[in-house]
């Protein structure tokens, strides 16, 4: 894939906003791949954790907004736990989720949750799910 690097994209206001929201310094990541190796759900992500950081370093936010990665991340913090640079991909992905949710766009709706699950699941699953998926 050929990418034309553009300073305006790399240091865009949106990238700065993502850094501000997530508290992460995107350029600290040196692409060792430990996060993707430890992530239990990287197999299910359109763009796995290491590449999430690379896309952001290149200013390619649009691709990430279309990928499922932010919605599949379970926030288990294995990525952060094993990062030699103390970068949290989980925090970064939560920043991306918040970008969507703070615009009032829901990723999930209560009527889509299967009724047997609503009846039997621990409340914490629903409360946490709503924090992660609903604006």
């Amino acid at each position, binding site marked *: 894939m050929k990418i034309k690097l553009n300073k305006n994209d790399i240091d865009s206001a949106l990238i700065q906003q993502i850094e501000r929201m*997530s508290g992460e310094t995107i350029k600290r990541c040196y692409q060792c791949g430990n996060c993707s190796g430890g992530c239990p759900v990287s197999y299910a992500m359109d763009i796995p954790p290491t590449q999430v950081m690379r896309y952001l370093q290149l200013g390619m936010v649009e691709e990430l907004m279309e990928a499922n990665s932010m919605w599949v991340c379970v*926030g*288990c913090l*294995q990525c*952060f736990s094993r990062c030699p640079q103390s970068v949290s991909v989980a925090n970064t992905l939560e920043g991306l989720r918040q970008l969507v949710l703070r615009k009032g766009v829901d990723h999930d709706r209560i009527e889509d949750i299967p009724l047997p699950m609503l009846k039997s699941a621990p*409340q*914490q*699953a629903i*409360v946490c799910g709503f*924090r992660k998926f609903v604006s």
Partner: protein
Amino acid sequence: MKIPYYPGCTLNTVAKDFDTSAKESARAVGFEMEDLEQWNCCGASFPLTPDNIMGLSAPAKVLSGAKKAGDTLTTLCSVCYNVLKRTNKVMQDDKTRRKSVNEFMEDDYDGSLKIVHYLEVLRDDIGFAKLKETVTKPLEGIKAGAYYGCMLLRPFDDIGIDNAEAPTIMEDMLKALGATPVEFPDKIECCGAHLAMNNKEVVTRLSGNVIDSAVREGAEIIVTTCPLCQYNLESVQESVGATAAGVPIVYFTQLLGLALGQDIEQLGFDANGGAAKKYLKRKGLL
């Protein structure tokens, strides 16, 4: 010794057995868990974006209320523990966020509470040696896999209950009860957590891996500290391999209660499809 206790929403309802077995066991080893007079849900997830002040307000409210009951607060659910402990650290270390949260709550909480998990009380205040002496029914022949998951351990700098990659606190407790702990590779892996709500495929794979990994190493029963881990592992039983299917998934306090001589009918082993009862019977413990 009395310790203020935060039950949280799940232990107050669907995981009541976890709550009652812990309280009974506490009495047997010499401390009393006192429910906070007033509490609310912790939010069930620590906000990972530091600018999300709203997400800190619910747990901060719990902490502020708990401070009026004492200097220490204990809890059982891994998620409550994680959220309360991390929020407490923010209130302790981060002046700016502390000010914002306090202004929003119209309160003045300073983060001076000490948050301890029930397992830490057993290890650090009671001591596993003393626990061993208190055991009336040693769990001989019980091969138990201690499943930690994520929230009890990570991030290490904020939580610090044990080594985040190779914890032993639950194995040490199991040994004190006379059981045989079984090490397995997936003991600190995630169960799929809140994806139970919308991604069955991921939960089936992750929880299935945990069960398979434990059974492959010889575990005959799996012990957990988290109602969501318990639910997720239990819910994928039909999807795992034939040898792993039906392995009982219980709270650590249920085995603790059994070893301390609690009445089996009060321990709630029925909730797990009766698998635990059958297993314990087979081992001659019932």
